[in-house]
Structure formats: structure tokens, C-alpha cells
């Protein structure tokens, strides 16, 4: 078990290494381009060159890469070109905001999806199953940017119940979170619900459920003790993967509602070619995604005795 955890962490570090190298080469491969993005479009070639030498960008790329990694590991994420301040000063607050949004969404989404998936899968082919299956396909078909405007039309324009933006200009306001959370949950829960349904339906037709029923134990116990545990093993990995999807949805949703989170920051950085900000956002996004997957994998082996004891 310990060996397995160490192995997973090793793979994670390897992925992080490759990803960081990719990001680095893509963004800092050509020093002149960095100089250009820092000094602006009107800088002369000599100025660019001087900047490159002055800031040590004339060293070989491998050396620069490891220096860069070293700085990141020490917590230095560089200076933002657009905001002219160290990335650290803006980045963490934005990330915390996204954490709030994603966290609430995640909890809502998983609860709704698991309940619906289990209810549908328990009675495969029933009305309740068909209804839940259709609803989950339907909501997964509405991308965040579409539901954002549709829900805004309904709740902001026609009903006037909710604010149309979530910029939190007057301090933290939970009401402004309602629409973004709704948008992300609506799009995201269907997939987990369908996976849970499929897994539950499969377990319900398995021979060991037949054994449990024919053992004469109460139906409630068959479901709670025998079916659920096995049925939730498979969706578990899907749920952990949702962190990855959630970070994607966050980019679109934050942009749609003007929410000051990390996704909006990444988009802004990318559009204005703010190299250090892109790198910081990219690395952290991948780190969160890979870390959740690693935790997911480890927990999965823990949940599944067939792997745990081999």
C-alpha cells in the first residue's frame, strides 16, 4: 500500500516535471518575445537585447528552466506584466475566490449527482430511471456560457431576483455566487449522475446482489451494505476527475459573471500575454488537477479491496 502511494506520487511529480517544462518552453522559449511582452510593442531591437542580457535570459534554456523551477519552489512566481506587481500579490486571492466557487459547486454537484444516480440505477428501466437519465443528458447539453445567458435572462432580466454580475465590488456577497454555482452545477452533475446510474445498475444485476437477496436479508440492507459500496467505487474516480473539468468550467463561468477568480485571471493573462501570470496559473491548475487525481487513485485502491490486498 505504501509502495503504491509512493509510486503514485512519483508519477505525479514526473507529470508535473513534464508539464512545467512544456509551459516553460512555450512561454519562455524565445527570450526576445519575453522582452517584447515586458517592454511593449514599441521597444527597439537593441532595447530588447539589452533587456535579455540584463535579466539573464541569454543563458541556455535548460539552465533558465531549472532556475525558474527553483524560484517557483521558493514561492517566487515572478512579476505580472499587466499589474506590475509580484504575481504572488494577486494570484492567491484569486485562487481563494475560485476555491470558494468550485468548492460549493463541487459539494452541490456530487450530492445531487449521487442521489439521482443511485435512485435511477436502483430500478433500471423504470419511469424514475428514464426521467433522471433524460434530465441529466439535457442539462449536460447546455454549456456554461449558454446557461449563463439563459439563466441571466430569466433571473436577472425577467424576474429581477438576482444580480447579473458577480464582481463582488461591494465586498463578499453570497447572493452573487448563486448564478455561477447554478451554471457550473447544472452542466457538471449530469455526467457523474449517469456514471453512478450505470455503475449502480450494473451492481444491481450482479450475482452477489442476487446472493444477498436470496440470503434473505432485508432489501434496505442489500442496497445500503452490499450495493452502494460497490456501486460508488467506479464513480469515485469520475468525481475526482471532475476537479479537472470544474477548473475548465471555472474559466468560462468566471468570465461570464465577471467573478474575480483564477480562471478570469488566466484568461486575462493569456489574452494580454502576461507570461509569468500564465505560467503561474497553468502550473497551479495542473497541480490541482494532478493532485486530486492522485488522491483519487489512492483512495480508489483503498476503496477497492481487490486492488488493496494484492
Amino acid at each position, binding site marked *: 500500500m505504501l509502495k503504491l502511494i509512493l509510486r503514485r506520487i512519483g508519477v505525479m511529480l*514526473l507529470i508535473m516535471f513534464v508539464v512545467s517544462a512544456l509551459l516553460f518552453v512555450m512561454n519562455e522559449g524565445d527570450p526576445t518575445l519575453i522582452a517584447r511582452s515586458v517592454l511593449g510593442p514599441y521597444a527597439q531591437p537593441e532595447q530588447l537585447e539589452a533587456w535579455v542580457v540584463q535579466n539573464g535570459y541569454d543563458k541556455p534554456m535548460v539552465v533558465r528552466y531549472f532556475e525558474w523551477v527553483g524560484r517557483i519552489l521558493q514561492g517566487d512566481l515572478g512579476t505580472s506584466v499587466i499589474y506590475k506587481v509580484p504575481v504572488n500579490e494577486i494570484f492567491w486571492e484569486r485562487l481563494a475566490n475560485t476555491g470558494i466557487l468550485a468548492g460549493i459547486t463541487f459539494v452541490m454537484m456530487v450530492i445531487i449527482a449521487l442521489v439521482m444516480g443511485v435512485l435511477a440505477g436502483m430500478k433500471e428501466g423504470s419511469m424514475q430511471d428514464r426521467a433522471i437519465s433524460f434530465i441529466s443528458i439535457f442539462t449536460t*447539453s447546455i454549456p456554461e456560457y449558454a446557461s449563463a445567458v439563459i439563466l441571466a435572462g430569466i433571473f436577472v432580466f425577467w424576474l429581477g431576483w438576482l444580480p447579473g454580475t458577480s464582481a463582488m465590488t461591494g465586498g463578499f456577497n453570497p447572493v452573487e455566487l448563486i448564478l455561477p454555482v447554478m451554471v457550473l452545477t447544472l452542466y457538471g452533475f449530469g455526467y457523474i449522475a449517469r456514471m453512478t446510474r450505470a455503475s449502480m445498475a450494473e451492481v444491481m444485476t450482479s450475482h452477489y446482489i442476487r446472493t444477498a437477496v436470496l440470503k434473505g436479508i432485508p432489501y434496505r440492507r442489500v442496497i445500503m451494505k452490499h450495493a452502494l459500496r460497490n456501486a460508488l467505487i467506479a464513480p469515485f474516480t469520475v468525481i475526482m476527475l471532475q476537479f479537472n473539468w470544474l477548473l475548465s468550467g471555472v474559466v468560462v463561468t468566471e468570465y461570464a459573471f465577471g467573478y474575480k477568480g483564477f480562471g478570469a485571471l488566466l484568461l486575462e493573462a493569456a489574452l494580454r500575454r502576461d507570461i509569468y501570470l500564465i505560467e503561474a496559473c497553468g502550473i497551479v491548475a495542473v497541480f490541482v488537477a494532478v493532485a486530486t487525481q492522485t488522491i483519487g487513485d489512492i483512495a480508489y485502491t483503498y476503496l477497492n479491496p481487490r486492488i488493496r490486498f494484492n
Partner: protein
Amino acid sequence: MAEITQGGPSVASPPNPIVQFFKGLFLLRESPVGMIGAFLVLSFVVMAVFAPFLAPYDPNLPQIPFAYPGTPAPDGGVFWFGTDQLGRDILSRIIFGAQRVLFYATAATLAAYVVGIMLGLMAGYYRGWTDEVISFIANVILSFPVMVLYVVIIAKFGASGANIILAVVFASSPGIMRIVRSLTLDIATREYVTAAQTRGESAWYIMLVEILPNARGPLIVDFCLRMGYTTITIGALGFLGLGLPPPDPDWGGMITETRAFITGGFPHMAIIPAVAVSLLVLGFNLLADGLREVALRD
């Protein structure tokens, strides 16, 4: 020996992919959900193919700005879906937008499939280090949240049709690779594959002739789902301002250009393209679900 006297059904027709396709559609009639999906997708396909004939106006022609749906047009026609802030007919823009999104989604998904199938077959059939290398690269790409990947790539290389296709291939072929790989791992254990090996067939013959045709069921379902997902992606890039350059109609771009006017009293301008993209995606998802249901029954 007379096991044969009762036989199965009578003589089969020789296989023909086109016949099979329509047979597949015919089978779909058993699944109402799948039929709705097929209807939605086909409607948009017809719209895209016959766009120049179906669209009442030039999609980029400014006429009366801020017209509500149903407003009479200067030439005696009607702006059925109204016009946008520049006075362009929304219906015409939706129709031409369907053409663009379907073209790019199909091209990108097909290209991703070619790459994904090749790599998946190799990883699943050769196994060993080939598999390790391919799977590791796939894991690296898949560890990026997709939208982060798109934003970083498009921001770096610029927004153009070709770049969008390349980005989609880059981002979704690892997922296809994984599916093909696991199907291949399974199918490769079948005895007909061993039979082919024992008569000395080449690896590519086995992968393409013995294995791939038997993976088609799940792959067709996945293709439909991925078409839906690529449609969403193309819309999202447009919405974020990373899509196809204006002024050509692009559903995502239409939403982003007009959403500021929702609270100003013109929600239709953004909601109509939002509904259009949702319907097309719904069509793909329902079609996939119907195909899966029909495939499971047989």
C-alpha cells in the same frame, strides 16, 4: 451433422458500410430518445448545407439595430429572431453559424479520431513500453484542465480555424486513445486475433482488419458525444474571444457580443444563439444515448 438443417436466418447480404449506416439509423427507431437526437442533428446539418438558400439575409448586413423577434424588415420580410446591436439578422447568423460550427467540429473530431485510433491501437496491441510512452504522454495532456489548455494554446498561437482544429486534436486525441486502447486490450485477447497471429498476419493487418472493426460500436457512440463536446468547445472559445475572427457569425461570439444587452432589455440576442448551441449538443448527446441503447439490445 444435420445440425445444419435448421440453420439460422436466411442468406445474408454482403456488408456495405452505407447500407449499414442506414440500417443503424433504422434500428434507432426503437429508441425515441435517439430519434429526437437524430432529428435535431439532421436539422442542423440541413441548415448548414443549405445555408445560402435558407438564410433570409446576408448574415453580416447591418439593417435595423435592436429589432425584437418578429419585427418587419425593410424589404417586406420578417426578422423572425430579431436583429443584434448592429442590425444584423439573427436567424441568418444562426444558420451560417451552424455551417461554421459543424464544419470545424466535424473536421476537428475526425482528425482527433485518426490520431487517437492509431495511437490507441498501438498502445493496446503492442503493450509494453510503447504503451507506457503513449499513455504517459496522454496522461500529461489530460492532466491539464481542458479549457486552460485551450486558452494557453490559442493565446500562444493565435485564433484561426486551423489552430482551433489543431488544439482540439491535441486536447481530445488522448481521450480517444484511451478508449481505443482499452477496447484493443480486450479484443486482442479474443481467439480470432490469436488465429490471425498464428497464420502470421502483420501487426497492422491485425489492428486494422481484425481489431478495429469490432471496436466500432463504442467508438461510434463516443464519436457522437465528442462531436457534442467539440461543439461546446468551439462555442466556448468564441465566447472567450479566442474563436474565429469576426465578423463571420460564430455562436459563441454572438453570445459574448450581445450579452451586455440582456439586462438592457434585449435578452433574445444572446439567448437565441445559446439555445441553438444547446440544441445541437443535445442532439448529439441524445443520438449517442439512443445508439448505445440500441447497441446494448442486440
